[in-house]
């Protein structure tokens, strides 16, 4: 009976993954999946509409789906409604407001609720804009929480409004077909009148006025709309891969005389959607794919859409939770079987994690780490990889256990870091060096993984040793060896990574070492690892002391990873949010607590790690 436990548990894990692989089910007969796959360009890259929806919603609402009274509304369906039935979408609670002062501005209390619809905010639109404008006058480092939050809200509203005029000129969507028809009619006579006017000849005043009004409107639109919806047609635009936004595409009508088929397509989608005519909607979608897919890197776009639906990081984090539970139970019952199950599951989670990492690399065409978000993903991945090696060598479930903790936590961190927008954004010029991204950044981040793994093992040692009697002398010694080995590994990687950073700096702006906060953070890790090893070699610390030092490694690495972003003086720019800071403080407090725990002499521990018989 017990023999089957690993297989059963593994199959359970596999089912979790397979469920994620199932194509998403959307309500209604509209082919939402196909709509989600329409390619557009923003932030310098071509991506599926679904990614635009998810990234926008994450900024506006801090979530990737809208929760309504009728259940969850996926991001893409929200975008569809926003674009085609904005008057309906305006009632959906999507704006998240936490700050009491901001709520006060709206005449609301904190306990009421957290999510607000556009309709809720509309009466206060002007006040919010004014307050945010005032707040931007304060230097960004000195802004109060309220100021930051009001700016955030105004930005979110702005982004929301931009989405409503990204696929068409906005306004009354019901009138779209009429508007386009009118424009097509106006454009010919208008152009003629315009030319006549230029030559000081008699011209048709009415046609001229109409033409000027339309052109003015679309010219403005072309400046503010930020979603490229029409693939480039001219050779120059193709070389730059510069897509036209809706305003530019509509202005093109002046030369072509007709509405761009993609623009017309979106209008027809809107019409069909509003008429609830799924058949017409789906037929037009098929047309648009024919129109669009030739001009877009559809392989990547479709893959990104698959990636969005699969949500591999979500699946992996579920697996990490299961692993955590399985190992915890294994220390009470069926240790061998459960630990083997956990190891198998860990391998499965690692495969998913690796797949997701590689997938992002392929979509972006970049080495794995390009921003803070991807560094969180990679730190988890590296730690899990090392932990798998440890578990393979040492057995006993400890490796799987700490892997599940680090894997889960880093994915949660990544999830929260994603709330600032597109996580596959373009690289700024100076960082644009695949070679250095692939060497320096990867190696140094792997160093972070190793330090955190060592620190988590030490935390396990200290907690298990002080709070339970479950840590045997041998297990303690094995952990000591693990942490020591990992620390050597950390030193190697953080040193090589840091110094490669120096070489990069020397290559790109002539200073091997500039003492900037991020460099100093990396240096602190190197120094700390060197200190730990020399303290051990010199007999300054032994098993318990070394573990305490390893916890210190957590504190220092967290500083180097996130803390330096708080200072805002460095040359390395990353984004970091307010709430992130409190979590960082919280993390430091937990680690300080662990250090205090570790300072208790071992004779007072519940686990007997020193031989009392001889003393």
């Amino acid at each position: 009976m017990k023999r089957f436990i690993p297989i059963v548990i593994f199959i359970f894990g596999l089912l979790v993954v397979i469920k994620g692989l199932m194509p998403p089910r959307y309500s209604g007969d509209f082919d939402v999946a196909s709509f989600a796959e329409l390619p557009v360009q923003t932030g310098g890259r071509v991506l599926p509409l679904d990614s635009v929806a998810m990234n926008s919603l994450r900024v506006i609402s801090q979530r990737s789906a809208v929760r309504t009274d009728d259940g969850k509304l996926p991001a893409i369906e929200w975008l569809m409604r926003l674009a085609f039935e904005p008057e309906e979408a305006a009632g959906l609670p999507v704006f998240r407001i936490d700050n009491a002062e901001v709520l006060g501005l709206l005449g609301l209390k904190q306990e009421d609720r957290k999510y607000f619809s556009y309709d809720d905010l509309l009466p206060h639109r002007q006040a919010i804009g004014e307050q945010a404008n005032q707040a931007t006058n304060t230097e960004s480092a000195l802004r109060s929480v309220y100021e930051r939050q009001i700016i955030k809200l105004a930005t979110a509203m702005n982004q929301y409004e931009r989405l409503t005029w990204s696929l068409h000129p906005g306004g009354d969507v019901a009138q779209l077909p009429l508007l386009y028809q009118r424009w097509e009619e106006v454009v010919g006579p208008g152009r003629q009148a315009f030319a006549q006017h230029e030559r000081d000849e008699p011209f048709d005043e009415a046609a001229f006025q109409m033409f000027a009004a339309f052109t003015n409107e679309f010219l403005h639109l072309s400046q503010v709309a930020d979603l490229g919806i029409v693939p480039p047609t001219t050779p120059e635009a193709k070389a730059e891969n510069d897509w036209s936004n809706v305003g530019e595409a509509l202005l093109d009508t002046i030369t072509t005389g007709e509405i761009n088929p993609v623009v017309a397509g979106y209008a027809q989608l809107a019409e069909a959607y509003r008429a609830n005519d799924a058949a017409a909607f789906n037929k037009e979608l098929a047309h648009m794919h024919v129109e669009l897919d030739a001009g877009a890197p559809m392989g990547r776009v479709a893959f990104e859409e698959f990636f969005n639906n699969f949500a591999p990081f979500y699946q992996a984090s579920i697996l990490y939770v299961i692993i955590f539970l399985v190992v915890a139970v294994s220390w009470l019952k069926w240790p061998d079987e459960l630990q083997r199950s956990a190891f198998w599951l860990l391998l499965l989670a690692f495969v998913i994690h690796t797949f997701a990492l590689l997938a992002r690399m392929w979509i972006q065409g970049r080495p794995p780490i390009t921003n803070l978000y991807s560094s969180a993903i990679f730190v988890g991945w590296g730690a899990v990889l090392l932990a798998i090696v440890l578990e393979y060598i040492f057995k006993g479930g400890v490796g799987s256990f700490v892997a599940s903790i680090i894997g889960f936590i880093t994915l949660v961190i990544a999830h929260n870091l994603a709330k600032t927008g597109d996580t596959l954004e373009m690289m700024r010029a100076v960082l644009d060096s695949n070679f250095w991204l692939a060497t320096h950044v990867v190696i140094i981040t792997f160093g972070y993984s190793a330090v955190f793994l060592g620190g988590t093992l030490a935390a396990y040692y200290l907690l298990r040793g002080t709070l339970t009697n479950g840590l045997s002398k041998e297990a303690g010694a094995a952990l000591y060896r693990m942490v020591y080995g990992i620390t050597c590994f950390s030193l190697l990687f953080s040193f090589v990574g840091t110094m490669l950073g120096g070489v990069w700096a020397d290559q790109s702006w002539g200073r091997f070492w500039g003492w900037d906060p991020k460099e100093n953070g990396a240096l602190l890790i190197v120094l700390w690892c060197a200190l730990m090893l020399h303290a051990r070699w010199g007999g300054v610390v032994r098993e318990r002391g070394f573990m305490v030092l390893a916890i210190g490694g957590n504190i220092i690495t967290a500083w180097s990873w996130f803390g330096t972003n708080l200072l805002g003086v460095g040359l390395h720019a990353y984004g970091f949010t307010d709430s992130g800071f409190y979590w960082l403080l919280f993390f430091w407090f937990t680690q300080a607590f662990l250090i205090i725990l570790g300072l208790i002499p071992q004779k007072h521990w519940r686990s007997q790690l020193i031989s009392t018989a001889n003393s």
Partner: protein
Amino acid sequence: MNPVFRIFSSLGLTVVLLAFSMVLVFFGTLDQSRWGIHETQRLYFESFYVLTPALSLLKMVAGGSFDLNLAWFKIPLPGGFLLGGLLLVNLVCAHFRYFKASWKKTGIALTHAGVVLLLVSGFLIAFLQEESQMYVDEGGVPVNFSTDFRDAELVLIDTSGEDVDRVTSIPRSLLKPGSVIELPELPVKVRVEAYTPNAGAAIGANLLRHYEQMLQNPQVPPAQKRELTEAVDGLKSGEALVLGTEGRTLLSKGTLPLKGFAERMGGVIQEQPESFQDNESNIPAVVVSILDENGETIGAWMVSAGFGGNIPPQTFDYGGQTYQIALRFKRDYYPFWIQLKDFSHDKYPGTEIPRNYSSDIILNDPGKGVERPVKIYMNHPLRYAGLTFFQQSFANNDTTSILMVVRNPVWTWPYIAVLLVGLGMCIQFCISLSRFIRREQKGRPA
């Protein structure tokens, strides 16, 4: 064993030094918000000790800004030079105490040799590295000098030569008020009347009017009002030549035989607080008297590094020669020229995110018969004549390229050091790993 040697060679000392290094690096990071990177580097890492306002800096991590109320609490910390030097001594001593030639120790030995080289190169770079900037305009004239905006020089330029100008450069460090500077190759001497490390030079009448207008603003706080009143009094008397940051007259005209800008325009120097921000440079200004061979004053001039091409060069004649006098950011001249053909600045489509910066230049060194086009771009500097040219910045609507020029004779040392340490660590890691695995396999029941 000698007890001093025992201490200096102990691993305990290593641990202590590493711990102090970490504290130094940590506070040296935090204090950058006050001093900027460059000044912090000088205070913390290129010094023997530093007084750090630890409490205030710690509070800054949570509060975001430096707390002046806690700034009185200062902890002395050993500086970078002291710690680096001690680590070096410690490393060398420990090597003599513990090292026994054996294959197993090659990793450690290599690593430590690399660390020694790294520390030594750190010292050398701190002393030898020079950084400056070269501005080149698209289609502009070739440029044969670079400018160090952190340093200034007072120059007397003898322009009477046919093809060449004779430049006599007095480094900023010699410009101490009251001192008389001998110029070995010129018949004149310079006496420094006043020196301000950061100041604006203004036309006295304009400044007076401006301050008077400000005084009429009822919202001016009392302290500032006092300062303004004092400055206005100084300016009204027509005596003030240099105004301090608090409005006090630091130098009066007195009997100074003023010439040039100061005489014609009623020039005044308004001192400003020094800036330590990394993206700002201080603009020094100075009032100097030129003395002839007998020590008689020829005249006194006011010069500022902020004078651009808009203020005509100030000159004086002596001994049949015409000399230009100017204070300018320190220049280094080279025997070769660089001309910018094209600067390009690409962005990602539909965004303002920069994708690439690059400068197409022509390098022309007639002395060596070199003339060739070079492309300088991100991560691809030009190394020539012991100098390295990096794409640093640009200006004037992408028509001016700013190159950073670095002279660092030991730039390869860190590379070698890193290679040694990396190699040493890898070897050591492999040795440990194989031993570890062997022991694990032995320890496990078959």
